[in-house]
């Protein structure tokens, strides 16, 4: 299959369209089947992926508007590959565990469209295509939050939409400007990211463009202080919405930094290390404290997401292989772990129709399986070695230590404050005697719930013990990117800060 990427992008969308004619009762089964096929396709992508090649693979290019250099241009490398697989996996698992009764068919169709936009964002190599999918992804999510959400759903949905939309408009201006500069320098129009990489921009241009892209990405990540849409969106979204939002949509922001900001503006990135690191540290500590103050389980996890995204941001701006590789890995880890945690909160919400921790207590006695899986995910979330959460966090902190020891120590407090809010959540909900009568008769995980969670547990442990199959391709692409950034950087400062690993200088090739 030469056009596997197109298939990956459009298969869910076409299946979603066909979904309109599917019978209401079988909509769920239909959705799961489609998502499963999509997931298998993405696995197939991994198996046919050439791990020794650091560049873009499975490239497809069809001119769309040749006069302006807009092409239908897709490709994956080690950085995007696993995020795609995670997106398809989480869609599948999310659908499997979905407990929505109302308008299931509409939900399935929406999710399939969402899947298209998510995969689209991560395979797009043309800025316009990227932007298209980026913005399109807002629509299904707006619908999911607005139609299936809690009491404040309309407020939350609109806030989410307008906030992220505003940021990405600024990013669009940035993209147009890059294309304009490219045209001025080379005489041809191009929106291909790979072409843009070759562009060596003066430092002041880089700074302005960095700022424009930053706004778009930072709101999506979400970075402090642009994060306040997130707790509302999570608080109101149905479980499946939160799962996808936390697992995949947030990663678009950090992916954007890796795909656009770093290789296109290496000098600006180096100049921005300190401000971004400071924001990241604020994100890590501040939101962890805010998470500790929450009374609602889901809000704790929502804020913990922000805290973890701070770690990812920090790693990206370590500008060395350990940090960026760790960040990309942490994106996967956070996607799986926070997705699972949101699903777990959904499990208890389905039973008790509340998420307030004060309503629980002693759940471990009545729901032991649930408590075990929650416990494993909790440990992954606080970064226990041999779970997926440790690898990324360790590499990020290790990577950033080279940039600034003091800031690393501050950021490292995440392992303490993270443990504080997670353990306090666990203690309040799962430990202690059962105080509420309603909790005494709660049913443990149903087979449906177990079968959606157990694969995630398996991945959490597998990638914690043996992350190599994932880490190696990521590392390869990251090294290639660093080599290339280093060559491209203009200022001496940037040349010095961008650390190319010794391993890459021997075999490194620039694509």
């Amino acid at each position: 299959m030469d056009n596997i990427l197109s298939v990956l992008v459009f298969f869910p969308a076409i299946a979603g369209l066909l979904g309109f004619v599917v019978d209401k009762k079988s909509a769920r089964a239909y959705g799961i089947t489609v998502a499963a096929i999509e997931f298998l396709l993405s696995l197939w992508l991994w198996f046919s992926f050439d791990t020794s090649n650091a560049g873009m693979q499975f490239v497809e290019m069809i001119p769309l508007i040749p006069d302006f250099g807009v092409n239908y241009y897709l490709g994956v490398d080690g950085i995007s590959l696993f995020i795609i697989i995670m997106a398809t996996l989480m869609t599948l698992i999310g659908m499997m565990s979905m407990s929505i009764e109302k308008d299931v068919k509409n939900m399935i169709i929406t999710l399939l469209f969402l899947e298209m936009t998510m995969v689209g964002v991560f395979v797009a190599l043309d800025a316009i295509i990227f932007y298209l999918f980026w913005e399109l992804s807002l629509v299904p999510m707006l619908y999911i939050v607005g139609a299936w959400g809690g009491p404040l759903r309309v407020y939350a949905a609109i806030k989410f939409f307008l906030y992220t939309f505003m940021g990405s408009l600024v990013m669009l201006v940035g993209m147009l400007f890059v294309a304009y500069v490219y045209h001025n320098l080379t005489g041809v129009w191009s929106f291909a990211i790979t072409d843009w990489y070759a562009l060596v921009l003066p430092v002041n241009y880089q700074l302005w463009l960095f700022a424009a892209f930053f706004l778009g990405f930072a709101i999506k990540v979400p970075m402090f202080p642009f994060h306040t849409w997130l707790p509302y969106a999570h608080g109101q979204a149905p479980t499946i919405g939160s799962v996808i939002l936390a697992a995949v949509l947030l990663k678009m922001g950090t992916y954007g930094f890796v795909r656009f900001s770093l290789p296109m503006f290496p000098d600006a990135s180096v100049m921005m290390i300190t401000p971004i690191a400071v924001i990241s540290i604020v994100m890590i500590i501040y939101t962890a404290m805010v998470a500790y103050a929450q009374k609602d389980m889901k809000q704790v996890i929502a804020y913990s997401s922000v805290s973890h995204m701070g770690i990812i941001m920090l790693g990206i701006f370590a500008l060395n292989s350990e940090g960026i590789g760790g960040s990309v890995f942490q994106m996967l880890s956070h996607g799986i772990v926070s997705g699972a945690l949101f699903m777990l909160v959904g499990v208890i919400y389905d039973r008790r129709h509340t998420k307030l921790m004060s309503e629980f207590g002693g759940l471990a006695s009545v729901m032991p399986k649930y408590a075990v899986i929650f416990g494993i995910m909790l440990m992954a979330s606080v970064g226990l070695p041999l779970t997926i959460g440790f690898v990324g966090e360790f590499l990020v902190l290790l990577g950033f230590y080279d940039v600034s020891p003091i800031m690393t120590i501050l950021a490292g407090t995440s392992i303490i404050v993270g443990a504080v809010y997670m353990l306090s959540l666990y203690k309040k909900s799962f430990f202690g005697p059962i105080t509420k009568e309603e909790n005494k008769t709660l049913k443990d995980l149903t087979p449906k719930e177990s079968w959606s969670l157990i694969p995630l547990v398996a991945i959490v442990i597998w990638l914690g013990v043996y992350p190599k199959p994932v880490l190696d391709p990521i590392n390869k692409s990251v090294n290639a990117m660093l080599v290339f950034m280093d060559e491209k950087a203009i200022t001496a400062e940037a040349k010095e800060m961008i650390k190319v690993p010794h391993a890459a200088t021997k075999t490194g090739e620039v694509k």
Partner: protein
Amino acid sequence: MENLVYIALFAPLVSSLFAALFGMSPKKQFVGVVASVLLGISLVASLMLASYVYTTGNTIHVTMMDWISAGDLHIPFGFVVDQVSVTMMSVVTLVSTVVHIYSNGYMDHDKSFNRFFSYLSAFVFSMMVLVMSDNFAGLFIGWEGVGVCSWLLIGFWYHKEDVSREENPSISPSWAANEAFIMNRIADLGMLVGLFILYWNVGSLQYDEVFAALPHLSGSILNAAAIFLFIGAMGKSAQFPLHTWLTDAMEGPTPVSALIHAATMVTAGVFLVIRANPLFSMTPDVSYFIAALGTFVAFFAASMALVNRDLKRIIAFSTLSQLGYMFAAAGLGAYWIALFHLAAHAFFKALLFLGAGNVMHAMHDELDIFKMGGLKKTMKWTYIYMGLASLALAGIPFFAGYFSKDAIIETAWNEGTLVLWLILVVTAGMTAFYSFRQVFLTFEGDERYKQYGIHPHEMYKYVLIAMSPLAILAVIAGFFKEPFEHFVTALLPEYHMSEHTHHIAWLLGIVVLVFAVGGIALAFKKYYKGLKRDEALESSWYYKLLANQYYIPDFYEEFISKPYAMISEKMWNSVDMRIVDATVDGIAKFLYETGDGSRKMQTGNLSNYLNWMAVGAVLLLVVAAVSAAVIG
């Protein structure tokens, strides 16, 4: 030999997974048996490895697979069996096996019997990873692994309710578990930073590569690495000021206290210092600090043990105190003595704890020694065991503690650190006093338990038999001091007393002995005949200070936990909601209200529109004119 390494390492893991299969079902006796057998296998394998290393002097190094590789960082799952790790392996598996067998009896009536074995074996596996790893990252895996298992095991009776601090110093098992985990995490951050320092300066985390590269590093880097690694050690080994979790950890089942919070996990910090001895011996200032802190903790913890009424807490304080001794030895450069005391201490302290477990079992979970007394009639063997262990702990000649602890005190003299020496000697006296205060109050004197309607009974026979290896070792371990020194100094730096110290060693020994015997005698005088409470003493400020652990837990509660919760609450309510979110909403509201306000312009009256149009046209003209004037 490689297979033996894997057997020793993975048998506990298999045991844990096997027990976990039945984790949610009711008690199954065979789970305990299988787990104990698997641990026994691990013990046998460890002992075979020990004899191999001992006889041949070879070390075994295996690399199983890669773990993390990114950039220039390569961390394998590598294991090394050398003199130090094989000592630790033997101690860990020996105590673990005994504790596993013991738990079959102790957890007899617990409905979560199977789950307990799963956790316990998982702990042993983590501990084995910790001691066997050939690199700092692997050590860190074990380090965090034992932390989690400790969390699980302290909070094993998670269903217990929170109570106020007046009733129970540690509030509840789940609270104590969280406290332990979080405090350890604080130290773990230090440890991680230590790893980062080593990695960025050496380029590897393998022990051998790191140690080989140390001479090329500058003094400040060495100091920083040593300090941060030691911060990590302080958490695991509960050194001041991160010590409060250890006594609260006594909320866990007693076998756990014996295994984790006495014999193995808490010694991990000491193990780290011993393992990283090339680093610490190059940083004399840090080492001196370690010795001083260790001495301080030895005294500090012993002082709190003097007045405590809780059977397990007394032993916990004593553990803390003995850890202080070990750090003192390691800090003074006598690494092998620290390791020797670690091993000897593991035996008699585990024995002491298991004995306390018997008492608890007999007394229906009553821990207040003021409510016991006269138990020797019903619990003869337990009395003997605990008596032996206390003799060893007090450092009475020819018991294990005599050889190891005396060596540490002698080291302090030999190094010329007389203040440390003096404190350690006084502490030895205090140790003897509180150990025998506890033994006498529990086993001798009037039978106070009768008022509380308790009918004590001796532990099962097989449990008592299972404890016997520890008892034997507590008595005889000291006689292996010479071969042990010979064995481990193949890897660790040798430490010899100076001629002068050697000369007066007998005198030093007598001084210590006088203090130890004095302590015992005082305890005998005060408590042998039963409990006579001294109201004046108990209401004095220093008694209260000690009984309240110098008010440190309250201090942490008032000045760390509560402010943290309060600031968090403020951050959320005041900052996040009122400032950050309100700003965003404010912008949106501003836009909305501007639109809402200007909506009034749309009256529907054409004449008004025309007026506005004219205004707009004039405005545009003015702007054009002004900009033309300015630019043109």
